[in-house]
């Protein structure tokens, strides 16, 4: 997976570049999830351990437990580096803080979008999401916030619905102004 490598660098889990706590967290989560799969998920959701149908799940769960344990041990043996307090950069901190707020907002927006598609349909949900995210990202021009979503959604509508013939979801609320025109097509949500 060289495509994802960062300049070919490799960092051992016990490398002390501030990753010890993260390594321990990953190890604990890995062990916990591995045991959960072995003790609960395989017997209840697949079948008795040892049957052919559980082979893949067993490999995955045992692997999680073993590699989680090795990672935990390796991280535990590393002494945390003390002394150096991280350098503070006021402007950098502000940027990072605003970035984190934006990222959390984007995640919340994406979750709401996924559910809003089902209820209010593709066009209203996408318009609101796009306008909301533009505001979240710091776009302050009212014209752009109002017009850019229209342009993007028009392109998607023409490409997907008209061009490819794939109906976009109209939502459970079935907006009369969308359905009467027949522009959106049939709904395709799973119940």
């Amino acid at each position, binding site marked *: 997976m060289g*495509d994802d*490598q960062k300049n070919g660098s490799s960092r051992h889990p016990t490398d002390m570049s501030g990753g010890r706590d993260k390594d321990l967290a990953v190890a604990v989560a890995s062990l916990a999830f591995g045991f959960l799969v072995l003790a609960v998920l395989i017997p209840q959701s697949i079948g008795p351990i040892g049957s052919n149908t559980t082979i893949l799940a067993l490999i995955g769960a045992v692997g*999680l437990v073993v590699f989680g344990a*090795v990672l935990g041990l390796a991280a535990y043996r590393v002494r945390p580096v003390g002394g150096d307090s991280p350098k503070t950069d006021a402007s950098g901190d502000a940027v990072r803080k605003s970035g984190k707020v934006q990222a959390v907002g984007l*995640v919340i927006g994406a979750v709401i979008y*996924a559910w809003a598609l089902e209820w209010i349909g593709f066009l209203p949900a996408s318009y609101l999401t796009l306008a909301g995210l*533009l505001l979240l990202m710091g776009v302050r021009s009212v014209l752009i916030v109002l017009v850019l979503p229209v342009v993007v959604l028009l392109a998607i509508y023409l490409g997907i619905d008209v061009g490819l013939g794939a109906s976009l979801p109209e939502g459970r609320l079935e907006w009369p102004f969308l359905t009467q025109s027949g522009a959106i097509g049939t709904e395709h949500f799973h119940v």
Partner: protein
Amino acid sequence: MFELLADAASLAFTIENVIGVLIGLMLGATLGAIPGLNGTMAIALIVPLTYFWQPLFSIALLMGCWKGSIYGGSITAILLNTPGTPEAAATAIDGFPLQQKGQGRKALHMALFASVVGAIISDVLLLGASGPISTLALKFGPAELAMLILFSLVLVAGTGGESHLKGLISTMLGILIAVVGLDPMTAQRRMTFDILELDGGFDLLAMLIGLLVLSEIINQIWEGGARDDYAGDAPKGLDRSRLTFAEIKDSAGVIFRSSMIGSFCGALPGVGAITAAFLGYDQARMSSPTPEKFGKGELRGVAAPEAANNAVCGSALIPLVTLGIPGSLSVAVIMGAFMVHGVSPGPMLMIEHRELVYALFLLLLLSDILLPLVALPLVAVGQRLVAIPKKYLFPVIVVLCGTGAYSTHQSLFDVKVMVGFAILGFVMKRFQLSPAALLIAFILAPMAEIYIRQALRISRGELSVFVASPLAGGFALATVALFGWSYYRGRRASRQSAHARSAE
């Protein structure tokens, strides 16, 4: 062979496919040139749309997109010192100094020339090598194939993230996610929790878009916010420098050697275009009589990484089409596209659809030849193209992600799956786990399961079947050796890091 190539050519070289390649090149080069988007993300966004088109046209478009995105990355690397794709990071080392000297246009043309030559050499190797390798692969039994997949998973895990152990944990997670759905042999429900949509397992494309595209956007915003800093030190205007024949002749040896390095790296699962680009750059610097010029605007420093990273494309398809194993993330996405169109890569594909496979190779070759047609105009408008601020780009991509996840199966459940995997991918990135290793394990695990169960059935439950034959035993030994080597390498890196810190 010539008859086969003629049949494949008649299949590949149609007007529709040529248009597909051109559209793909344009999309790929444009998206690849935008910092924050890479080729894999571009392909992942386009794959759902291809569901509605003819398979060969779709594959032509995706091949063009893949090739175009790799070249597109070099435009911003040279003009703005901001690699559009990670593969182009090495290109910026000498490309941007050339731009600062007023020779950016020359550097872009050299990058284009080296990209085309590197890609053609790699594709010719693909044409020649894939047949014999797939013939050999047909001799593999279930046990050998299971061990080969196991070896590939360990190899990919070792190089996919920042640590081998974390790569392996990501791989195990991918294996567990692959369990969800109906058992491939008994159709028994596994970990579906009575959700009907999960009977078929998680949708690969929704996963791809979530793990690769949306999670990357969340991560980029988390790290720096969607500010206007798309460019860095943007140059004022394009120069009129020209690439001369003497300069091409001077770089020919470097381009050829880098192409061979890139082809070799591409054929190995787990070694991708980034490694190839840096290896190519290093060999150019070490073999140069004036290594001190590198890093200060040396034209061969642009040619070498571009030839190497483009040469990865063709040879990266060798393990895919011959063994059904995607050796890199981009190839895994391409494999996902094949599967969407009902094409299952592997040795049988080379037997049953030989013309189709060679048509695909020819389309790859065609995309190399057509790349200059798309790239040259792009060079001229490159600076305007890359100046799209992330604050406009990212919200649009979020909605495109939702549209892409929905449109393949017209299922809103897939949109939720996409968002779920985006959050998982983001969390994994924050903890230095590898979403790429997870994804490749998710793709390979069902195949591995079938082979393991077939082998156990044949051997009546004897586990020794996995080391009984020389091939299976060889793969098992190589897997153990790989574990040992990567653990040793990690320990050594850790000690060096500890020594360096104590010295400070």
